């Protein structure tokens, strides 16, 4: 899995941020490419460019090996993201791609999946309970 971070800052700003701050949070700095979207044209194409503020808001896109967007999450600036949830979604989409099985609400790696079939119609209640979602 490759991470690409992107903001309207220049690649020069990314270099200094990496060297002066990020490398002090994480030894060696962040290991992924830091992309520059001067002018916000890329953010506009992804629907995350805020023209009034002149910046890209927090949008995260999971793109599969065929180049298809499988998931997107867009947050306003004050709230940071949850890396555990990102990994959970990537693992789930990788599992779908490998097996064709589907993940019920709240699925975690190693938990039961569902195999869609005509026999499962109306019978999901037998194999999945709300408490398995951890939401209730």
């Amino acid at each position, binding site marked *: 899995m490759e991470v690409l*971070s*992107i903001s309207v800052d220049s690649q020069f700003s990314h270099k200094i941020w990496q060297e002066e701050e990020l490398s002090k949070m994480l030894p060696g700095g962040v290991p992924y490419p*830091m992309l520059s979207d001067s*002018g916000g044209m*890329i953010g506009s194409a992804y*629907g995350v460019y805020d023209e009034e503020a002149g910046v890209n808001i927090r949008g995260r*896109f999971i793109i599969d090996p065929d180049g298809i967007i499988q998931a997107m999450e867009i947050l306003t600036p004050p709230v940071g993201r949850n890396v555990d949830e990102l990994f959970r979604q990537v693992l789930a*989409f990788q599992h779908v791609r490998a097996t064709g099985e589907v993940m019920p609400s709240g699925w975690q790696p190693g938990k039961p999946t569902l195999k869609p079939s005509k026999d499962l119609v109306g019978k999901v209640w037998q194999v999945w309970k709300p408490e398995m979602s951890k939401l209730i």
Partner: protein
Amino acid sequence: MAENTVSCVSPAGGPIGVPSQASAQAPIEKEVLKMSAKVGKPAPDFEAKAFKDGDFKKVKVSDYKGQWVVLCFYPGDFTFV
């Protein structure tokens, strides 16, 4: 992923295969450009200048075909969250 020469001013990257916003597009075409990312649909391709492996490079999202990619937009370097 071509090397990117270091200069004060060089063309910004941007989406590939869509009309440039700079070239006086009608507003309706700008709307189309804004809405082009959808789940289940191809990720809009683009080229961007990047800081990568300690160097300045150009990166296309299509360079990563065959791999899972997480593309993360954020408001700015040196912000707090």
